[in-house]
């Protein structure tokens, strides 16, 4: 069964600092990878996704993520965070040809950006 591990449970940064959130998954086959964001009191929204092609994907709000197949990783980055980026971030993996579309989510990383 696939699993997803997010290394940082809670990250605190000052505005303009750079961000990198780690995500590793365990599944040997073809995967779709996602990062979702959940702002306080809101539902999950898709930040970016990787299906195939260029392993460096760009998402909304200046976020990007790099898929490194050899490391089973899909880390999220942003060069300069803003206070409005304060939210919960979830990495998710969908193992193709199994689990009928079920996305397995990591436990989430709480990002707090101090003004």
């Amino acid at each position, binding site marked *: 069964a696939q699993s997803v591990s997010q290394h940082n449970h809670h990250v605190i940064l000052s505005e303009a600092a750079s961000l990198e959130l780690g995500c590793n998954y365990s599944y040997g086959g073809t995967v*779709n990878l*996602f990062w*979702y964001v*959940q702002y306080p009191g*809101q*539902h*999950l*929204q*898709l930040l970016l*996704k990787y*299906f195939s092609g260029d392993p460096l994907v760009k998402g909304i709000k200046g976020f990007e993520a790099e898929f490194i197949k050899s490391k089973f990783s899909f880390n999220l980055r942003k060069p300069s965070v803003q206070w409005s980026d304060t939210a*919960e971030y*979830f990495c*998710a993996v*969908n193992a*193709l040809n199994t*689990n*009928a*579309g*079920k*996305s*397995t*989510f990591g*436990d*989430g990383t*709480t990002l707090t950006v101090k003004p």
Partner: protein
Amino acid sequence: DTAVSQTPKYLVTQMGNDKSIKCEQNLGHDTMYWYKQDSKKFLKIMFSYNNKELIINETVPNRFSPKSPDKAHLNLHINSLELGDSAVYFCASSHLTTGLTEAFFGQGTRLTVV
């Protein structure tokens, strides 16, 4: 134009009661899901339906029963509610036949059992 809508948004009820949460999507997706998010924000899948057919049923007490009258609706009925059922329940949808595996989430239903 809400893509995935859930009702109610908040639900407070006593232990032992039976309650339902409704979900509808207007995206034309073929697959719908129920996820449970606990107080620590952990997100776990409960059920998935593809074209009204149950395809994923995780380890969930049989007090929870999903019902999909058509592929645009997936309702969740919970019998004999317990304190531990308190959580936020998210409905989501995706379109597997086109390979669109990203999930679109509803606003969530915050269930509080007292």
